[in-house]
């Protein structure tokens, strides 16, 4: 379980998240992909905090989790509001700022 294991797993999860974000059109799935990317970075931070024998990585991971939770709440509310006004779930159709 060396550095490379952490790096490879994290890179794989991040790329899965990036692919999901870029390819899918459902905003919910895109949001889950963003969560996946944040989680991969969390894993990287925790792995390296274990390797470097420091607590800073874990604190960083906790902060990222806080930000992710806030972001999920706000983003889901925005998605809900958009769906309420438009009854449409395709991000390509949302191209105007005027509601």
């Amino acid at each position, binding site marked *: *379980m060396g*550095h*490379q294991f952490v*790096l*490879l*797993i994290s*890179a*794989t*999860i*991040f*790329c899965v998240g*990036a*692919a999901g974000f*870029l*390819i*899918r*059109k*459902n905003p*919910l799935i895109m*949001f*889950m992909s963003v*969560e996946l990317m944040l*989680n991969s970075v*969390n*894993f990287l931070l*925790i*792995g390296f*905090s*274990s*390797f*470097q*024998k*420091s*607590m*800073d990585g*874990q*604190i960083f*991971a*906790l*902060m990222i*989790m*806080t*930000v*992710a*939770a*806030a*972001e*999920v*709440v*706000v983003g*889901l*509310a*925005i*998605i*809900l*509001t958009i769906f*309420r*006004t438009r009854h449409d*779930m*395709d991000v390509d159709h949302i191209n105007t700022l005027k509601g």
Partner: protein
Amino acid sequence: MICLALLFLLYNAEFVAAVQIIVYAGAVMILFLFIIALLGGKKEIQEPSTERSLAIVFVVTMLGELFLSATVGPTRPVEGAFDAQTVAEVGGSAKAIGLELFSRHVVAFELASALLLVAAVGIICLSKFSYVPLRRRMK
């Protein structure tokens, strides 16, 4: 997400693993489930386009690049103060994190709590005030 929490456990981060399970499995996924149940799943139409293939090429390139940078090149370990033994002496991962969080990272902690408060207030505003103009528009 739970698998990731198990991986956290592997790297002596018991507290963060517990937080991961509580926050993600307990809160975020339930929120997603609620929204999906509210909006209903719909099959999305996937037609091939240049943007899609560009995105796939981009992601595959990024994956290759990350793998390359992960496997090639030396990594130099930097030794900090917290190895598994000292953490165990302090009295577990949670206590070590607490000591660190409330001594050296107090400002970040307070900022995070302020951020959560702002998010909560914002959600209340969004859900409260978005009804009225909507009804007016529908008439």
